[in-house]
């Protein structure tokens, strides 16, 4: 029997679609409701009004200045029903008309004042976004409070302390994640003498719902992986934003590195046994029951991390058919650039690959993601490591995932570091890195950053967009077959998602260090990006490129683009 050609093509297309099909819809539509777009963290929009055919006509529609110009604007704006919520490093929140930029309300907060001694947090004031749900805006403040505001008026509704900042030196930096009736927030502290956790508050009352400590206490499972009392200041700060699968009711979060970062002598029981489950649950992906905060499963990516290779970054949830079986998966890029694919139901290891070109901290990846040929810092001796622990193989700036192309779009960095590890006594809340160092550029390269289109399961690179200096902005992908991101020199740009060809750029006037989003109001698509260079690693990266870096300007401006009203 001959099968008609058209039917054969249709079957093949269906099979191909099924291969890449996601049972879950992680795409945004008119709203940009969560930090990662949706709780799946795709940073992908189904909007396609702006597309490869017309992106060259994109123009600024409105601009908003926050007034905080001495650092970076690292935020991801949230858009709900035509209102855009924008947060700043000093815990200000602005509610703006998403179509015009008109100010609806402004929530002011006392700015961080490290000089007076009134505040004490490591890393200064940084804010990467708010969460919006139930008619409320949820903000983690620079002095370690969770605040709920009325989304219509900006009126403060409740405020609760997360921890004593003067003692822990910690505060939230990543955006909160709302799941059902709770709002979950992490915090800094992985490089300090602190024991990290996630905290969930009831969105209606602000009351504590649960707290999950990354480092188990005495008597709890996992505590046996710590030497002596080292667990008390074991780090594991969960400083970015997690994901959520509503079908499984599981929250996924990447945990921070163990402390002290570079010196493990006081926290590792047997330095010769570092293959798996060392200093739990640091540098791991964890799945928690959203209702109770109880641990369901964990997968430790970097057992005995001595490079400052957090697992704190975004966890992208997607589905794939593997060996003929539909699998619920997650993909997670560790700070080292090592990328893990796990079954998100069970935590089963599927695959791991290296996304960087210059890698010296290991020689390869073994069975079940085992690190082969570990190149560890030798205490007291400067040791060169690639990628750098400070910048990572990728920074916190988020990748995007497109369900149409089935690809990840990742901003990678090729920078190394000389680490000098040293023993350090923990002082509560103070830096506890067990050493320090300086970054440097690997030799004989033409580019030190690249935006890659990567198959999330195999790690195969489909195309590469090289960039001569650094890329430290998140990536946005859209159904218009476009990928957006920004450069330190101020260029905000769009690439063809299929080929990687640059189609458009706009000079925003300040370095791009935040996260672009897209949304629609009354049928018109807008693309918004936060501009302003800064943070700790922004100037650090600029020091590698003295000529270019002197022009990477700080600022705090939101620029919103759209096609002209007379679009065809």
């Amino acid at each position, binding site marked *: 029997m001959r099968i008609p050609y058209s039917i054969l093509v249709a079957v093949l297309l269906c099979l191909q679609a099924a291969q890449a099909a996601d049972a879950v819809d992680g795409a945004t539509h008119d709203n940009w409701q969560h930090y990662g777009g949706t709780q799946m963290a795709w940073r992908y929009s189904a909007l396609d009004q702006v597309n490869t055919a017309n992106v060259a006509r994109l123009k600024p529609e409105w601009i908003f200045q926050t007034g905080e110009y*001495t*650092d970076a604007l690292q935020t991801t704006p949230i858009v709900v029903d035509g209102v855009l919520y924008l947060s700043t490093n000093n815990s200000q929140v602005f509610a703006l008309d998403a179509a015009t930029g008109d100010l609806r309300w402004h929530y002011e907060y006392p700015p961080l*004042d*490290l*000089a*007076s*001694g009134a505040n*004490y947090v490591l*890393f*200064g004031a940084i804010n990467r976004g708010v969460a919006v749900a139930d008619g409320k805006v949820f903000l983690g403040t620079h002095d370690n409070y969770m605040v709920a505001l009325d989304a219509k008026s900006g*009126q*403060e*509704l*409740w*405020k*609760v*302390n*997360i*921890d*004593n900042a*003067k*003692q*822990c030196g910690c505060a939230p930096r990543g955006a909160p994640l709302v799941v059902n009736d709770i709002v979950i927030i992490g915090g800094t502290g992985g*490089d300090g003498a*602190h*024991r990290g956790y996630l905290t969930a508050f009831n969105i209606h*009352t*602000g*009351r*504590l719902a649960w*707290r999950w400590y990354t480092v188990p*206490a005495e008597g709890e499972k996992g505590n046996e992986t710590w030497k002596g009392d080292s667990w*008390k200041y074991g780090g594991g700060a969960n400083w970015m934003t997690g994901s959520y699968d509503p079908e499984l009711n599981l929250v996924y979060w990447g945990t921070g590195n163990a402390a002290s*970062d570079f010196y493990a002598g006081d926290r590792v029981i047997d330095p010769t046994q570092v293959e798996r489950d060392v200093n739990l649950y640091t540098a791991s992906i964890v799945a928690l029951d959203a209702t109770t905060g109880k641990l369901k499963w964990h997968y430790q990516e970097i057992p005995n991390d001595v490079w400052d290779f957090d697992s704190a970054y975004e966890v992208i949830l997607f589905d794939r058919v593997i060996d003929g079986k539909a699998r619920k998966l997650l993909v997670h890029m560790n700070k080292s650039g090592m990328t893990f694919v796990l079954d998100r139901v069970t935590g089963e290891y599927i695959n791991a690959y290296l996304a960087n070109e210059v890698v010296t901290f290991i020689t390869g990846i073994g069975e079940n993601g085992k690190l082969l040929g570990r190149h560890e810092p030798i205490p007291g001796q400067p040791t060169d490591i690639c990628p750098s622990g*400070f910048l990572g193989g990728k920074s916190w700036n988020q990748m995007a995932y497109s369900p149409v192309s089935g690809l990840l779009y990742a901003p990678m960095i090729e920078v190394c570091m*000389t680490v*000098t590890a*040293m023993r*350090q*006594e923990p002082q*509560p809340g*103070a*830096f*506890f*890195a*067990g*050493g*320090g*160092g*300086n*970054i*440097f550029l690997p030799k004989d390269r033409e580019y030190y950053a690249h935006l890659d289109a990567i198959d999330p399961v195999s790690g195969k690179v489909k195309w590469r967009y090289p960039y001569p200096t650094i890329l430290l902005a998140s990536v946005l992908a859209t159904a218009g077959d476009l990928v957006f991101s920004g450069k330190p020199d101020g260029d905000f740009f769009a690439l063809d998602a299929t080929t990687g060809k640059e189609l458009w750029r706009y000079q925003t006037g300040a370095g791009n260090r935040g996260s672009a989003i897209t949304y629609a109001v009354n049928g018109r698509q807008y693309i918004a990006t936060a501009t302003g260079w800064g943070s*700790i*690693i922004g*100037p*650090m990266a600029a*020091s*590698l490129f003295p000529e270019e870096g002197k022009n990477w300007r700080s600022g705090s401006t939101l620029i919103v683009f759209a096609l002209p009203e007379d679009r065809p």
Partner: protein
Amino acid sequence: MKNLFRGVAIASCLLTSLLTSQAEAQDEILATGKRVYLNTCATGYCHTPDGGAGGGGARLTARGFDLDYITRTVSFGLHETRMLGFATTLPAEELQAVIAYVASLNGIAANGIVVATKPPVTLSPAAERGKTLLHDPLRGFNRCATCHEIAGSGVPVADPIVTVPASTRDLKRLKTAKVATVRIGKERMPGLVLNQGAVRSLFYDLTSTPPVRRNVETATVEIKPGSRWRHSDFTRVYNDTELEEILEYLRAQIP
């Protein structure tokens, strides 16, 4: 003449000895300063171990800083930057030593630096233990610092403590007169009322720890004096010895 030579020799010897001892003292200060620098300034994302470029903090070596600038910056930080001030967190001798060390990176011989610091409060061993217990992170939110700010550390939910109870017995018997019963709809909760205005009311919901500062429309809330909330329910998490040590710490901080 012979005596003159002898005198010169002795003076020279004394001067050499003085200079040597000064140099040794200076070396000691710089060694201390370097140790403090490595532990405090060159750990993690801040300055590099050798004071050079490539870390998160600024390069410190050969910057042309003067001693006054270094002293002010190390002591009080830099406004609108991530540079913390260490005047309240480092002991005076360590603060002076690290200033001298940073000065040495800029070619300044920093002898006899005087840094304005608050005289340190010397705590007895019991008070030190009390301080730790009051802030104890291993107790989660079940610790005094969840509601009390002492010497700038802790959460100022309660009014500042002005009188320290004379004994653990008195501490356990503390009245909780300011806590009222707040009713919103069908829900009742113990509340520490901060303000009851015509339009909005502000109170701490003490139902659970940590307390939540609620801001509600006055028309939706009913506030009645008295509550079942007891301070003793929270002091119970400590034993008597621990409470006595906490009181010892409070006595040292609150005259």
